[in-house]
């Protein structure tokens, strides 16, 4: 029972503090590794990959997955509800002041300071996963290849995942990588 309380507390916190969409939840989920050890960094990375490749908002997918890794099906549903609960209250509060909200001085000021902080948090997780996931020559080659592609094609990360997946199968087929 205690784990549900922790789940609620942590995921409610994520819903409340992650500003800037689904990917902003990643640093928070990474923090949970150090704090509780519900899953490993490798599992988080798998979770992100699966979340992007499955239908549904990425942030919600990740919450469901993280909850499942923690304590199974009920925990998954519980975590998902916890993460969107703040949204519900905030939206109702904001809807009443809809017209003036975006132009409010304090809203603007807080967004101006939250965006760089969000960038910084994501960069740190990126660096940590880089250290974990990119370990040999082939992975460096894939990373650089995808990086080069990002100059030509933009936005949708789905394509990068598909390309990487095919390369992985290809390398495996010719026994170029050992797993």
């Amino acid at each position, binding site marked *: 029972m205690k784990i549900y309380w922790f789940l609620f507390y942590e995921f409610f916190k994520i819903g*409340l*503090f992650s500003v*800037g*969409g689904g990917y902003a939840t990643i*640093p*928070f989920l990474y*923090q949970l590794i150090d*704090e509780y050890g519900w899953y490993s960094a490798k599992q988080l990375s*798998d979770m992100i*990959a*699966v979340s*992007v490749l*499955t*239908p*549904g*908002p990425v942030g*919600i*997918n990740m919450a*469901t997955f993280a909850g*499942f890794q923690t304590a199974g099906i009920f925990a998954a549903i519980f975590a*998902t*509800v916890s993460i*969107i609960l703040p*949204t*519900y209250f*905030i*939206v*109702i509060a904001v*809807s009443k002041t*809809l017209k003036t*909200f975006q132009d409010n*001085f304090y809203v603007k*000021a*807080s967004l*101006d*300071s*939250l*965006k760089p902080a969000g*960038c*910084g*948090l*994501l*960069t740190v*997780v990126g*660096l940590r*996963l880089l250290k974990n*996931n990119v370990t040999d020559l082939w*992975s460096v080659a894939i990373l650089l290849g*995808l*990086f080069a592609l990002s100059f030509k094609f933009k936005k*949708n*990360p789905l394509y*990068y*995942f598909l390309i*990487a*997946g095919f390369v*992985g*199968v290809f390398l*495996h087929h010719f026994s170029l*990588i050992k797993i």
Partner: protein
Amino acid sequence: MNLNKNLQGIYLQNNFSDTADLKIHETPVTKAIPQRYKLKFLLCYNRTMEKVTLTELYKQFFMLGVQLLGGGYVIVPLMKKAFIEDRNWLTEDELVNFYALGQCIPGIIAANVSAFTGYKLRGKRGAAVALAGIITSPIICILTIAAVLDKLLQLSFIQSIFWAVNIAVVILLYLSVKEVWGKSMKDLFSWVIFIATIIASLIFKVSPAIIIVCSLIFGVIYKVIEKKKSER
């Protein structure tokens, strides 16, 4: 209500060419309107009268959850198709406004936009139903995959896929930083916060929630001081 039913029929047929043939159930209100404005008025009337049922709302947001693939911004074209073109639930301005607001408040953007839409259509209950709708498909899909993932990961070629896809995750993070970079890093102030965040998180392992709250407080105080200076 009779009037409403009549018009829904007309609306579905999409046959606007010959307004003279329309058989509209006349009420004192409609009699007062000139014929040429009548159709336009009645369509608007119909639009506002149409009350979205909660079941329909749930169904639409469930479908939205199923179709949503990739980042949060994908929700805008999908909602435009489903709620503006196929149904008259939203106007374009509202959608743009909801998306902008959804980025301003904490939480997952797709969920924020859904909650705003649900609230607009059916109030508090509508917001709850919209959120319930949008989380249904992730729960089903993810639980299905999560249940078999451990088994799948025992296969070596699945492992190789995940090995490669995990490298793409690093690129994903790079892309998501790059996307907001231009909007975020405007001046020296934002660089200070960015670097302070990296130091706090990478070296001292401060929790993200604390970093967010601190930068919020620091940022607002800084902006207030800056504003007062410029006013002098």
